[in-house]
């Protein structure tokens, strides 16, 4: 499963650990340069982190969401404004991911009604792409799952988006959210229990794809 932690653009498994460390150092250097405030340095830093922000927003909002670009923009501004508070003690990517995810979740909650309206307009203006019925079903179910996750308690919702949608490990979620691993496990357990109840109520079962089961 693709991870957002990836250097910036590549899957972590595709890079040796030494390269990942070098990438992390490079990103920290770029962040320091951006902190200095020169526009060129800020732009270089933003270009480096924008793929991570985009993927995080897409994971939280869903693919094709009409607010995606605006939310990415908001996240970029948030990150620049938050940089002075960053203590360079953890991964810059984790810091960026945390900021982006919270902005994306808030954006989604705020803009649900508007997004539905815009989507309706898009549906009226564009021919729907031809896709396989099974794929359509999966996408609809995925979107429903995403929507149900957002109805959970904010911390559980954030943890489940990171785990289920973005594919982070528990340890990575702990680093991103600045929470102990046991706290993350608790949030994950409570969140999944709540999600299971919602799924049962909506009678949504997993598609019998058998994929990913080894």
């Amino acid at each position, binding site marked *: *499963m693709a991870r957002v932690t990836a250097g910036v653009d590549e899957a972590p498994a595709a890079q040796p650990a030494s390269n990942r460390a070098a990438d992390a150092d490079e990103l920290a250097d770029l962040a320091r340069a951006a902190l200095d405030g020169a526009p*060129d340095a800020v732009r270089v830093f933003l270009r480096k982190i924008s793929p991570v922000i985009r993927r995080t927003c897409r994971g939280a909002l869903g693919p094709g969401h009409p607010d995606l670009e605006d939310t*990415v*923009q908001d996240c970029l501004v948030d990150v620049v404004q938050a940089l002075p508070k960053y203590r360079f003690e953890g991964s810059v990517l984790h810091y960026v991911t945390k900021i982006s995810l919270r902005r994306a979740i808030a954006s989604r909650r705020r803009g649900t009604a508007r997004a539905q309206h815009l989507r309706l307009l898009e549906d009226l203006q564009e021919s729907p792409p031809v896709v396989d019925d099974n794929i359509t079903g999966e996408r609809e179910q995925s979107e429903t*799952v995403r929507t149900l996750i957002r109805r959970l308690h904010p911390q559980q919702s954030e943890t489940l988006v990171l785990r289920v949608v973005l*594919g982070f490990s528990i340890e990575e979620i702990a680093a991103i959210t600045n929470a102990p691993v046991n706290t993350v496990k608790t949030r994950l357990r409570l969140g999944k229990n709540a999600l299971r109840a919602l799924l049962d109520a909506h009678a949504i079962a997993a598609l019998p794809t058998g994929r*990913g089961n080894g």
Partner: protein
Amino acid sequence: MTLDDHPEELIDLALAGALADAERATLDRHLVACRACAVQLAHAHTFAAAIAAQPRDANLDRRAIEAAMGRVASATRWSPPRPGWWRWAAAGVLLTLGSAGAALLARPASSRTPPTVVAPPPAPASPPPSGATSADDVAPSPPTADAVEAEVLVAPPPTSAEAGPPTAAVLFERGAELRRRGARAAAVAVYRRLQHLHPTARETRLSFALAGRLLLDAGRPADALVQFDRYLAGGGGVDEEALAGRARALEQVGRSGDAAAAWRTLLDRHPQSIYAADARARLQQLSAPQP
């Protein structure tokens, strides 16, 4: 295992395709009763596909970045974002006409920096040059700059909060603060002190590029070249800027052939760089027959 004990490790193994038979049986028993975990597994590939890169993402990123830059600029003292290379290129052209013209353009970066974004440093390394509180007050003057650098290098005033030599982070922040205040020579001096005291620190690596940029702005291309070369010897996150700065420094010291090679290196390594257009223009000019 109860229904509420979600087997996260087994789910990770399943997603990695590394599940043993016994583990698969355990996981399957849980999945029958737990729709949350079943949905996570069944939709993993759909969620992964949803966050994967798409053809128009580069455009989306570019638009979002430029819009964000505009918003950040409007919230600070920046002028609207104008790539530093434009100023560098203009300064380079004017240098061929006369150093006085270059001095007018080669202003320090302080006029573009957002002071509200950066916390003040613990203490300045030394008082800035008299009256050097704005960009206009620090017109480059090599003898004065050298004097300031020497002063900072020879007699770094300790602050009451310091028991030993300042850390790399402290020096880096001092240099940044001096840059923001327009005290270019003092900033270079602090960066050089950082390089002397902490030769292996990550802040030092970045300081080579920053000092190179400051020295180039100050009309000292030979000194800038040394700094850019030291930065590029180690590499890092601002390679494009260092390569562009090095190329301009080479042009300004009259090494046209080396400058052309440096621009080509920039294009080879970073064909999508924001300096690419400038590099091509400079290459075209450098290859044009001289009158």
